[in-house]
């Protein structure tokens, strides 16, 4: 290869490597801040600030959803199977919100460690299948991830 072209090739490699390293360092410095939400385990360990707007994400615990009879108030628990966080919320929940499903709640933690949510989002997972397949899986005793129930 022509020496000048070789020099330009090294320049190109340098640009790519250098910018990757720079981006890598920035992401390393920001690592915790890029996460959209805290898992309940980190909240339990006191890593989430109290009184500040934060998000907590996890699975909605089965049979934990308690709805009010005369208002839109709802309380439920989020878990990452290590710790639980109680969430209270008043408003309309997304269609895909449900027990045993992922959800992300935004709000502030109070002193008791309860998240007073101002917004609840449903988190969809990567499993896509027709209802018959889901039904068949249920019949055979496996969940959608192929794990025995």
């Amino acid at each position: 290869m022509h020496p000048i072209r070789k020099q330009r090739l090294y320049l190109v490699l340098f640009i790519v490597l250098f910018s990757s390293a720079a981006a890598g360092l920035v992401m390393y410095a920001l690592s915790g801040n890029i996460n959209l939400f805290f898992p309940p385990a980190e909240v339990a360990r006191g890593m989430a600030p109290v009184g500040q707007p934060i998000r907590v994400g996890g699975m909605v615990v089965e049979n934990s959803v308690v709805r009010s009879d005369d208002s839109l108030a709802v309380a439920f628990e989020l878990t990452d199977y290590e710790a639980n966080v109680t969430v209270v919320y008043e408003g309309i929940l997304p269609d895909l919100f449900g027990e045993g499903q992922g959800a992300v709640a935004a709000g502030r933690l109070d002193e008791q460690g309860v998240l007073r949510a101002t917004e609840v989002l449903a988190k969809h997972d990567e499993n896509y299948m027709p209802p018959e397949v889901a039904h068949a899986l249920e019949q055979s005793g496996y969940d959608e991830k192929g794990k025995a129930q």
Partner: protein
Amino acid sequence: MWSFFHKLGSPPWLYRIAGTIVRWLLPVTLVALCVGLVWGLLYTAPDFRQGNSYRIIYIHVPAAVVALAGYYVMAIAGAVSLIWKMKMADVAMKSCAPIGAALTFIALVTGAIWGKPTWGTWWVWDARITSMLILLFLYLGVVALYEAYDNKEAAGKACAVLTLVGTVNIPIIYKSVDWWYSLHQPASIKFTGDSTIDPSMLYPLLLMIAAFYGVFTCCLLMNMRAEILEREARTNWVKKLALEYRA
């Protein structure tokens, strides 16, 4: 091998071969696009949890996949134009940018439309969505930077450097859902291991991804042909071509 590389650098040859490829690829692409759309939107079963709203996957995922792949095409073209000073690589790089921007925009808009009924929000600043927005700005940045220079050579150089710096964003977009907690779900199509999307839904999706690659290639080649004609407007072969068309 090298003679092919040298031929690629010849504007009339590239103009002609690009025309031939488009003539064959475009009908195939359009058929694949129609079949994929009808198959995906009408003939697949609804999802067990999302119902029919999941069908936007047949537009969203192909647009996003090709937007990422297209960036590498642009970056490689940029690197070739920097190293070998090949004008046709510069043409390819410049022609990629608006198509990539359009695909990224489609991915973002369809994602927002899907997000509202599924997540309960149009937009959330999670790692995947934010890095995808940065990709849109990178594509638009290349378009804008190219137009900001009067001198084509300086414009090409500046844009090539910008595209190379931007390549770092592509693996970040791809891995963002695994590296950080995000609202966006991880990939359903997996290169290793079983995909977590039912085969009956996967096949039309793969067809749509192939069709979007075809759309990208056709748009790119047609863009390049137009750009070549514009740059070579004063040469004899273009003048001859214009006369042939008039006759």
